[in-house]
């Protein structure tokens, strides 16, 4: 049968043609909101996704269960027929992935929970109600997930959903998704709640703990201890939701994805209500989210906001790079593919999201200047050695005070496999200090010591490098010294990279991929994308680094570039962007 072009398809449609960008069912980044359109239009809508796109379908709990104790999966409303959706996707050769919420959802009324359960509004750290403006200027209130009735209903819904997908033969992956936003550069989950409901649940937790463990647990005696126990409690609740979901969906369970919703913070609410939100802020939030391992989502932003450079950023940085990367994290075939991935050289291991130690030590400032978009935070729970992992070009920054035995083994494994470890020994346990010393002796490693702003010890084993420094002492230095310390140290690594000179608020994004058959002269291909989300003209200039060959300049929008020998300079007009591919060789 002859293929019908998108334009012809619209002309045959009985409904008013709506461009994909303005259609509520496509809120961006390959999300598909099935309840926003008639199920009879699903096929037409799904056809609009490009081949190879992984389509994200968030399951709308309150749409399938309006009271919390009745369920509709294709029984009453035809739009609840997820089997039909799955079959259409299979027929069209598209892959759909279901997302089940693990937290309140900011783009749904009542945070996605059935209306009868929406009783206790959740409060943020300041004690202010979570009110989030969606792309249609509705204010969605988020309700507490610490309400036992919400958990019971959620648990039952997960079981019903699991039974439905298993019975109807839906084989799509199911991910649990955590919703949150960036608040003061920190990722905050919407599960975080400081309401009375949380406090009540917490006091029940304390009582239960005291009864269970009356000898060891004597109650809370300090604010610090309260913080730790509250964190433990909220982790317990998170894991309860997670267990309910993973047990409910059984074999379809794939894992957890974290999303950061642009425009979803309190600061955004205050600015968005008077239409004073800036694209340059969202633009920065995309990079910050990626560096925190969180997928940015623009679902809360109206389409008009995403027309220009922000839309291109979302498409290039999120849709075609980071999202795919996250969805195929455990896919062994993906590691050697020629698809672009984010260029991540530096991994800053941290114990939790609120930890600002690398910032205090001046490392993030230093990396932001010379290696913008090339570093990311790594949750300490994920800091582990995986057999077969290539760590040759990877740098891991680790805090000694947070280390336990297994982390120490990970450090040694990475080092012995050619990775680079930069370890802050302040607070390092005495036993581990001795183990490190004996490791140097046993392996007959030549250890160099230098005193530059702090004590630094350097050891090398093949390609592997292990640098131990004292962070406590470094913290006593001024911020400029701290930043310079890292600049000096990192310059000794001789990393293949290019420094970019840009004006403020211009966003830089680096990607990398393996070379294809036609590019065998190069070991890898790096793509540099530069975006100007401001309404001012911005300058950009960079010299080609050694071992970087210019391949092509692509996707030029509103920019004037001039290519000189080994140098590119030019101007980015408002809303301008461009990308450049470089071949990198030894």
């Amino acid at each position, binding site marked *: 049968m002859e293929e019908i072009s998108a334009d012809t398809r619209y002309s045959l449609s009985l409904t008013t043609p709506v461009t994909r960008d303005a259609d509520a069912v496509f809120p961006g980044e390959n999300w598909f909101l099935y309840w926003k359109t008639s199920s009879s239009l699903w096929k037409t809508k799904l056809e609009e996704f490009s081949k190879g796109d992984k389509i994200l379908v968030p399951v709308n709990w309150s749409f399938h269960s309006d009271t919390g104790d009745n369920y509709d999966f294709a029984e009453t409303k035809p739009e609840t027929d997820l089997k039909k959706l799955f079959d259409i996707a299979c027929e069209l050769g598209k892959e759909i992935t279901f997302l089940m919420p693990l937290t309140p959802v900011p783009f749904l009324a009542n945070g996605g929970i059935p209306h009868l359960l929406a009783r206790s509004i959740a409060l943020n750290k*300041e004690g202010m*109600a979570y*009110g989030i403006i969606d792309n249609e*200027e509705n204010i969605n209130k988020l309700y507490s997930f610490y309400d036992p009735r919400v958990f019971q209903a959620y648990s039952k819904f997960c079981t019903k959903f699991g039974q439905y997908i298993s019975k109807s033969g839906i084989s799509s992956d199911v991910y649990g998704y955590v919703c949150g936003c960036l608040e003061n550069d920190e990722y905050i989950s919407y599960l975080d709640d400081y309401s009375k409901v949380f406090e009540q649940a917490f006091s029940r937790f304390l009582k239960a703990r005291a009864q269970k463990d009356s000898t060891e647990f004597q109650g809370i005696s300090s604010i610090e201890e309260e913080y730790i126990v509250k964190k433990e409690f909220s982790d317990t609740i998170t894991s309860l939701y997670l267990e309910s979901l993973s047990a409910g969906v059984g074999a379809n369970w794939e894992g957890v994805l974290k999303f950061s919703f642009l425009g979803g913070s309190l600061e955004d609410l*205050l*600015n*968005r*209500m*008077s239409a004073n939100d800036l694209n340059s802020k969202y633009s920065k939030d995309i990079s910050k989210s990626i560096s925190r391992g969180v997928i940015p989502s623009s679902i809360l932003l109206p389409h008009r906001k995403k027309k220009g450079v922000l839309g291109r950023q979302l498409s290039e940085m999120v849709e075609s790079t980071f999202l795919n990367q996250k969805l195929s994290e455990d896919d062994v075939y993906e590691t050697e593919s020629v698809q672009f991935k984010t260029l991540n050289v530096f991994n800053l291991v941290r114990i939790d999201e609120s930890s600002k130690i690398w910032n205090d030590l001046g490392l993030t400032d230093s990396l932001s200047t010379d290696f913008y978009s090339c570093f990311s935070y790594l949750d300490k729970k994920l800091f582990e050695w995986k057999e077969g992992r290539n760590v040759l070009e990877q740098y891991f920054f680790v805090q000694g005070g947070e280390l336990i035995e297994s982390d120490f083994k990970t450090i040694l494994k990475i080092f012995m496999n050619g990775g680079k470890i930069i370890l802050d020994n302040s607070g390092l346990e005495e036993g581990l200090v001795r183990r490190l010393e004996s490791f140097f002796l046993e392996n007959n490693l030549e250890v160099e010591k230098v005193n530059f702003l702090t004590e630094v010890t350097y050891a090398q084993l093949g390609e592997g490098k292990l640098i131990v420094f004292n962070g406590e002492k470094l913290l006593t230095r001024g911020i400029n010294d701290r930043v310079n310390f890292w600049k000096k140290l990192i310059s000794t690594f001789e990393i293949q990279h290019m420094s970019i000179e840009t004006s403020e608020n211009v966003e830089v994004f680096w990607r990398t991929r393996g070379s294809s058959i036609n590019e065998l002269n190069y070991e890898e291909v790096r793509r540099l994308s530069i975006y100007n989300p401001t309404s001012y003209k911005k300058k950009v200039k960079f010299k080609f680094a050694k071992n970087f060959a210019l391949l092509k300049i692509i996707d030029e929008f509103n920019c004037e570039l001039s290519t000189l020998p080994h140098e590119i300079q030019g101007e980015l007009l408002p809303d301008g962007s461009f990308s450049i591919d470089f071949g990198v060789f030894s």
Partner: protein
Amino acid sequence: MDKLIAIYRFKNPANDLNYSKGSYYLLHVLTNEGAVKPDLLEKFCHDYDVENPAEEIGLGPFESVDDITKFCFYICDELRLPYVGLLSMDEFNSIIEESSKVSDLLEALHSDGNLIENISITQKKSFFQKVFDRK
């Protein structure tokens, strides 16, 4: 209406050693142009000698709502705004709970709370007004 909206919270002083300094904290300051930029707010705090303690949420402490009002008047003078609307955090939360659209929220923010006129701006006369008003 040009107006400065300030949202404050009251911290329960029980067990707080800093109680003598007050228990009111200013959380957010808004104008028609959105939230007042942090660097500008920092400047106002510096000029008016208001603390921004790292361990606390909000600016302060202030001894009373009156003190917050005075600080807001100072900001109003600087930004040439004629009115101050003061909202406690609970009042703001009720507004959020009751608003389903942005327009509802804006309307409630302008009509609810404690509205105070900044006479130094509203009754300030221009040079020509002064000339023509002179009898």
